[in-house]
């Protein structure tokens, strides 16, 4: 049985529909992601899963229970890493863990060894007695993750776990989340970073404007909605100069073999993306198309999102 299941889950704020009838299931032990731009409805969905926001419609089952009637019981078994840090900056690192553990009515005898273990896990043992306020953003995030683990939750909810962190700090957080995954902790996360979704998620749904537009593993999604490779043509001029040249090229290429040179083109303000399984072949035939730079790369979830919605994930 799935740990979390939703059917037609909806959240409305007045006239605005933040989550518009979504279906999903999260299985035990997997890392499940909601990928989408800001405002896609990810955080509203997370708040409903976290039992701090009642659904306006549809059904939601968490650990086999109904969140609107058994919110307290469910929350006992969840660990939540909110988007906005809410650590107590006046208390010490260890006190933050202690006091949060007390909300779960865990006795001191249980908390003391667990705090030591968790501080070790998030590499903050040396900072145990320091105030939280001067810690770096990455350290605070790790502490928030440790805090969410204090009750040994069955599901860890992470709302944009690395937003606002520098690249190095992100990698440390990812590495910790990987370790948790290997230990079998079920994780549900939201992100608007396609690299984060690719790195962490076994399975994800792509959300846009409150709806789920695609579902699968990162690999499946790329196979289904994109090509193996992408040729990026960048220009300082009007992008139409490139697209005009490409159109002439395309007509000719079709004339030669009947095979289009590339499957699909996406036009962005400063570049054109050509979707193909053979990037180098396209580059070899560019001829009179003269961009400032050419880059062949493999497809990512960013391309999936662009294809599904016609927009970029991060603007």
């Amino acid at each position: 049985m799935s740990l979390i299941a939703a059917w037609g889950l909806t959240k409305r704020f007045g006239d605005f529909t933040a989550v518009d009838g979504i279906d999903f299931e999260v299985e035990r032990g997997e890392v499940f992601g909601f990928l989408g731009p800001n405002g896609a409805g990810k955080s509203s969905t997370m708040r409903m899963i976290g039992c701090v926001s009642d659904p306006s419609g549809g059904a939601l089952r968490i650990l086999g229970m109904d969140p609107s009637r058994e919110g307290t019981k469910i929350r006992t078994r969840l660990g939540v890493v909110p988007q906005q840090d809410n650590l107590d900056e006046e208390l010490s690192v260890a006190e933050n863990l202690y006091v949060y553990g007390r909300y779960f009515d865990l006795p001191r005898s249980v908390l003391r060894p667990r705090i030591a273990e968790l501080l070790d896990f998030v590499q903050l043992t040396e900072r145990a007695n320091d105030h939280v306020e001067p810690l770096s953003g990455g350290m605070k995030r790790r502490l928030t993750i440790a805090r969410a683990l204090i009750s040994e939750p069955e599901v860890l909810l992470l709302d944009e776990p690395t937003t606002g962190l520098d690249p190095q700090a992100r990698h440390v957080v990812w590495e910790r989340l990987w370790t948790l995954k290997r230990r079998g902790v079920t994780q549900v996360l939201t992100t608007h970073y396609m690299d984060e979704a690719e790195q962490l998620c076994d399975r994800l749904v792509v959300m846009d404007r409150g709806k789920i537009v695609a579902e699968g593993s990162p690999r499946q999604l790329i196979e289904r909605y994109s090509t193996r490779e992408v040729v990026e043509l960048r220009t300082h001029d009007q992008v139409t100069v490139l697209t005009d040249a490409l159109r002439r090229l395309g007509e000719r290429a079709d004339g030669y073999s009947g095979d289009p040179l590339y499957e699909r083109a996406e036009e962005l303000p400063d570049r054109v993306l050509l979707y193909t399984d053979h990037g180098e072949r396209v580059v070899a035939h560019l001829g009179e198309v003269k961009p400032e730079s050419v880059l062949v790369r493999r497809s990512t979830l960013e391309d999936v999102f662009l294809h599904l919605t016609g927009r970029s994930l991060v603007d």
Partner: protein
Amino acid sequence: MAPAPVIPSPKLAVEYWLLTYRRNWKGSLLTSFLSPILFLAAMGLGLGSLVDAEVGSGRDLGGLDYLDFLAPGLLAGNAMMLAVNESTYPVLGGFKWYRTYVAMAASPLRSRDILLGHFTYMAFRVTLASFVFLGVMAAFGAVSSPLAVLAPICAALCGMAFATPTAAFVATRINADNFSTYTRFVIMPMFLFSGIFYPVSQLPIVLEQIAWLTPVWHGVRMCRALSTGTGVNWELAGHLAYLVALILIGTLLASRTFTRRLYE
């Protein structure tokens, strides 16, 4: 393996507030000492000597020296001020800046545990400060009845009659814009016109009747009766009932506004 069920309770939330109190109890206790010392010295001794000479002890003060009259009034007024402080910025902070309530809401704690936990802590703070106040009053010789030991409890009730509806209101605010208006034009007038510094019978009848409605007037009357041992009668039960009713109404209102804010 299902974990042992957690029974959420306000007690678990109170622990958080007590932990933060442990961080700054020295400063807060010092304030609790200094504030009555300043007020009683300046107004009780300084102003009081003039009043006593002029009025001839107690024509309108019910036979009391000005210091004895003023001190229990300030006890109640001080509790009101402290309770208002504790129920404005810290409450909005719980939702907005420190997000303490938000962190608690993700745990098994329910809205009412979060709210009652914070109210319990506020009551603790105000009671403690009021007992310190009583100690300073005694040192100034402004206590003349053993019943005075009950006065800090009444002062704390008076404070909570302000704190609970104030917190209910604050939970509906997006920012702190109105707080200083509230303190300046709602709380401060009550401090000045509710019988702390002079009997409300000195006021025009309309203002006097308004004063009767303010919780602080009821608190002042109770504290004064207990600390001086005069006028200890059934009137006190009425004051007590009024304050308790306000606390209950404030708590009910806060329960609604907190729940709406936390689970919006």
